[in-house]
């Protein structure tokens, strides 16, 4: 169909039969948001597969996609789901704790210049601490159950949340704050009925960044101390030189991050459609 459109476009006599506003192929591809990236991905996979075969690249350097798929079979599905659940649980709990902690902090920072002057530098210092380096210390302090892993996840996920929430809470048009003051409404309603809803677009950009960071946090924690979880599985597999199955673990992590990211996006589209630009509602 696209080919006929191309030939018709070249022949001036065929003009009347041409569909109005028929776009060139490249623009029609842009109009289909899924096709192009999937196509690119497929091409990369094929190149990857053929190059590993043609150049006989050993699987511990770069396993072929088919070897990675075989890697999924190295462990039983029950074991996989145990690993996935362990990582997902830590990531989600750490994420929720980060949200619960960052919201009151953001409200404090946005409402009070004093608090913001006093605590913002401290937050930046905390954020500047390399969490990977602190992780072993936290594990020693808090033991080896979920608690230290949740704390590590929290530490990685919470800073973007505080920043985006604070920015959002301060983004309210000053006129609406004046309206609130002119009505002599209770202070908390200024937060709940004006500032927080106004911050929704900002909050969601923070939520999207942090949800993928939470997965990273959970994996980092598992690298340091765990006996289950995808992070543990990858480390264990590489130490046994089973690279294809380590890659399989990586694929699972990517899928987990993508699904969580999409879940947050979907929540925004479902519950706060007004907070999205028009064309994405």
């Amino acid at each position, binding site marked *: 169909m696209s080919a006929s459109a191309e030939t018709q476009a070249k022949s001036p006599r065929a003009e009347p039969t041409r569909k109005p506003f028929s776009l060139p192929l490249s623009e029609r591809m842009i109009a289909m948001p899924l096709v192009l990236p999937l196509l690119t991905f497929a091409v990369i996979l094929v190149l990857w597969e053929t190059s590993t075969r043609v150049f006989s690249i050993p699987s511990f350097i770069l396993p072929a996609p088919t070897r990675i798929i075989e890697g999924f079979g190295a462990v039983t599905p029950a074991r996989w789901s145990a690993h996935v659940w362990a990582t997902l649980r830590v990531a989600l709990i750490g994420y929720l704790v980060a949200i619960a902690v960052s919201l009151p902090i953001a409200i404090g920072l946005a409402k009070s210049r004093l608090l913001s002057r006093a605590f913002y530098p401290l937050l930046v210092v905390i954020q500047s601490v390399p969490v990977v380096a602190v992780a072993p210390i936290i594990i020693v302090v808090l033991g080896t159950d979920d608690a230290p892993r949740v704390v590590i996840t929290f530490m990685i996920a919470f800073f973007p949340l505080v920043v985006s929430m604070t920015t959002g809470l301060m983004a309210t048009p000053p006129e609406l704050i*004046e309206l609130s003051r002119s009505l002599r409404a209770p202070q908390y309603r200024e937060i709940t*009925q004006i500032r927080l809803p106004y911050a*929704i677009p900002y909050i969601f950009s923070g939520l999207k960044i942090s949800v993928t960071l939470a997965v990273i946090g959970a994996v980092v924690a598992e690298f340091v101390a765990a006996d289950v979880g995808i992070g543990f599985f990858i480390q264990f597999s590489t130490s046994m030189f089973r690279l294809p199955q380590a890659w399989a673990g990586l694929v699972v992590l990517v899928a987990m991050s993508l699904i969580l990211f999409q879940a947050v996006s979907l929540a925004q589209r479902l519950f706060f459609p007004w907070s999205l630009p028009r064309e994405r509602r």
Partner: protein
Amino acid sequence: MALASHAIDFRAVGQVFATESGPLTALDDVNLTIAQHEFVAVLGPSGCGKSTLLRLSAGLMLPTTGQVSVFRQPVTRPRDDVGIVFQQATLLPWANVLDNVTFPAKHKRGRVGSEDRERAAEVIAAVGLKGFEKRLPAELSGGMQQRVGIARALFLNPDILLMDEPFSALDALTRDAMGFELLKLWQASPKTVMFITHSIPEAVLLADRVIVMSARPGRIIADMAVPLGRPRDERALRAPEVQDFAAHLRELLIAKEPAS
């Protein structure tokens, strides 16, 4: 009797703001009385303290010197009988027209009752938005959004309406249309209006009286009655004495514009 009663009084009002580059005098020795149900336009260049005048009347700030009174009571905090229309409509983007108009009730009292919804329907109809109650602000034109802003200000039925360049963000045609609509609203239910603007035609079309202010520090340099009866239409605006009046206002404004 109605005209004799004072709605807003400024007595020797001065306003100084602390800025990074030192104190900034926004208003200097402002004396002004606005009678009840009078429509007063405040005309001046940008940064002449027009908006400060409005915020003082609303009780959103207190004067550095002098005194501001509303209905002969000194203004010490925001009052219930004052409604504000801002330069931008500043509606809540997540709330439809009805919820935006009833927002003052929800915000002040925490709930919206059935009588609130009746009152909202009234003011929404008055600003010509009947049938648009369920639309979100993003689905409305700029002019319609500002109508919602006006309806929201009228919702609590204030005695005084403070308008801060309410039509300046609109295109010229919409702006004229909105001016006439505002006149109709005001004639149907008279209120004391303080209308901040930097548009001479707008001031002449709408106001009983025009106050001209100078740039920093803001001082009142002229206080003149508009030589036009009511009701007004476009034709009345073209009368020679009205044109002369507008020209005079223009001269006052240009003379006071600081030489650059």
